[in-house]
């Protein structure tokens, strides 16, 4: 789960990581008031779940409260598409008004998980303000990684070594030392998968401040962070994906596809997409109904797929393991009855209780073409799409 910049900054501020003064605004008028209280000179930043806002026009400088109000009015109610967001347009419902900083130098600092090393990693670079992937490619020697033993935490000597590589003066070193420890603490206590400060800026007065902040929380750990769940801005993801999320379905809409996929298991779901593509048709979505899907969950999955107007045909590929095919079959029929939407289906059912499931579906009166295996299903897809 991703947070907005202003939410991330509040978390940083609560742990005493230095940030510029700022406040979130929902209208031009609010923006004006905040800008006034900040002394007029400020930055207006669109609050969306996408990186690369600056280049896309989502970050504007204002010299006075009126300008801040104007920028805010222009942004709020519009949407933003950045080079990092692909085809998605993110709605701007809030802007963050922040005092302008005079930047002397920009750094990059992040804490994330290094799955190859099976531990958290602190990443620091002297090349802040840039896309870190680009830095990694062009200047790999300007990135330093500190792997952290989760039982020990960030070892002081490792941070000292990092600081000495870049020859920081004493004052900045001690600030950086403190910020790294604070960020690591936030990372662990909030079950983050990523905290990224880009840039961590050295501003006038020789102070380090977090100019931007990105925090992503581990979805699987949200059950123990009810306070954070409340922060989630539902407007930032599309309606189907939101609906899927609420029903514990892993769903991703793929643009331009025509074959809706309903599969259990992420691996099989990806394979099903690959096979659809190889058969000459485009998958309309990735959908994993999960291991132990209930009737209700399958019903909602059916609703989500059939709500997509691009979908001309549905490929159901279920392999019962922990999932019971008969339960899934009932869910499909319930979805058909409740949402009254019907799209022809190619169905492959195998594993736990799959024979029962076939019988249940056969009696439903829905337009269903059964296939015994995936190669057959691929042929059936072509046939049904008239190819």
């Amino acid at each position, binding site marked *: 789960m991703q947070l907005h910049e202003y939410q991330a900054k509040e978390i940083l501020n609560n742990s005493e990581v230095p940030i510029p003064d700022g406040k979130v605004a929902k209208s031009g008028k609010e923006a004006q008031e905040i800008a006034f209280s900040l002394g007029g000179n400020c930055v207006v930043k669109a609050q969306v779940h996408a990186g690369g806002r600056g280049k896309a026009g989502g970050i504007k400088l204002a010299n006075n409260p009126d300008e801040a109000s104007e920028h805010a009015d222009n942004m709020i109610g519009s949407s933003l598409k950045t080079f990092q967001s692909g085809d998605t347009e993110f709605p701007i419902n809030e802007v963050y008004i922040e005092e302008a900083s005079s930047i002397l130098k920009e750094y990059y600092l992040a804490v994330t998980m290094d799955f190859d090393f099976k531990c958290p990693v602190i990443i620091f670079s002297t090349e802040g303000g840039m896309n870190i992937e680009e830095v990694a490619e062009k200047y790999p020697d300007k990135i330093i990684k500190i792997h952290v033993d989760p039982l020990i935490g960030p070892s002081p000597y490792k941070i000292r070594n990092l600081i000495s590589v870049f020859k920081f003066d004493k004052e900045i070193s001690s600030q950086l030392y403190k910020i790294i420890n604070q960020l690591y603490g936030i990372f662990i206590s909030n079950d983050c998968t990523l905290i990224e400060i880009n840039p961590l800026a050295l501003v006038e007065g020789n102070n380090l401040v977090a100019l931007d902040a990105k925090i992503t929380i581990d979805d699987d750990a949200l059950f123990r962070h009810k306070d954070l769940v409340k922060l989630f801005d539902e407007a930032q993801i599309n309606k189907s994906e939101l609906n899927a999320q609420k029903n514990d379905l892993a769903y991703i809409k793929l643009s331009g596809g025509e074959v809706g996929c309903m599969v259990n298991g992420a691996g099989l779901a*990806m394979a099903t997409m690959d096979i659809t593509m190889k058969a000459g048709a485009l998958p309309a979505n990735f959908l994993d109904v999960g291991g132990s899907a209930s009737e209700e969950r399958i019903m909602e999955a059916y609703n989500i797929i059939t709500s997509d107007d691009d979908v001309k045909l549905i490929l159901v590929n279920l392999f019962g393991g922990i999932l019971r095919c008969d339960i899934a079959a009932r869910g499909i029929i319930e979805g058909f009855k409740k949402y009254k939407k019907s799209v022809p289906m190619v169905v492959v059912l195998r594993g736990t209780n799959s024979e029962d499931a076939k019988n249940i579906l056969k009696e439903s009166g829905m337009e269903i073409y059964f296939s015994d*295996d995936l190669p057959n299903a691929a042929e059936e897809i072509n046939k049904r799409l008239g190819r």
Partner: protein
Amino acid sequence: MKNILNKDSNKVLVQGLGRDGSFQTEKCIEFGTEVVAGVHPTKAGENFKGIPIFGSVDEAVSQTSPDIGLIFVPAPFASDAIIEQVDAGIETVVCITEGIPVNDMLKVNNYIKGKKVRLIGPNCPGFLIPRKKLKVGIIPGSIVTDGKVGVVSRSGTLTYEAIVQLTMLGIGQSACVGIGGDPLHGTSFVDVLEMFEEDQNTEAIVMIGEIGGTREQAAAQMIKNSISKPVVASIVGQTAPEGRRMGHAGAVITGKSALASEKIKSLKSAGVYIADSPTEIGLRLKELI
């Protein structure tokens, strides 16, 4: 540590006998698995299909001496169950549970480091050895046949897909092992490949990888250096959009090495036979034997 494929005693303890756990345990027993104990915090003293249920793993271990622990405990409590089984001295721990927080698995991975335990999973279908009538997990018993091909995969249902293809072509399996889809997991491809290389009942190997991480590259390196048996591999997620999490926490494409094309390249250079489509896994293997 002894190869899990070649142990003489395979008594199983099941922790977590809720709706799914009970259903799946029954399927394991039907397959022929020797389930000796159940563990459930509120069902101690009861029995499940004649198998005694204990309140703690310790108690179950002292009375029934299981060799393998199987976990169906819900995600918020699953990491504690793994640690409980490790502390009780169970050498092979199989965790089926999906959705365990990364931080919890981080602690588990550190805790078991250097300890005499083999953890399989989490978020995996477990393992199955047809020859021994041993099914530890949720791989459907109806689709397997005894034979000489070892199957290893990150994905549960895709493992079944590969098994079915083999079975339909009359190719039996020596063992099927699902290592799980989470980025922080116990047993890796490399570990299982090592077991298959050692195992006299395995003559060829099927490996199914997916986008995300660099596990397949590690496997490729290992195959190049120390696997003498033929390997067929398939990598799924070729059509996945970049930067999106595809259900498996591990299957996020970040960085070039996580791409299907990179993984295929490194496996090919290690002499692995690639099934271009997941529907061709069985056929590719048949060409080899």
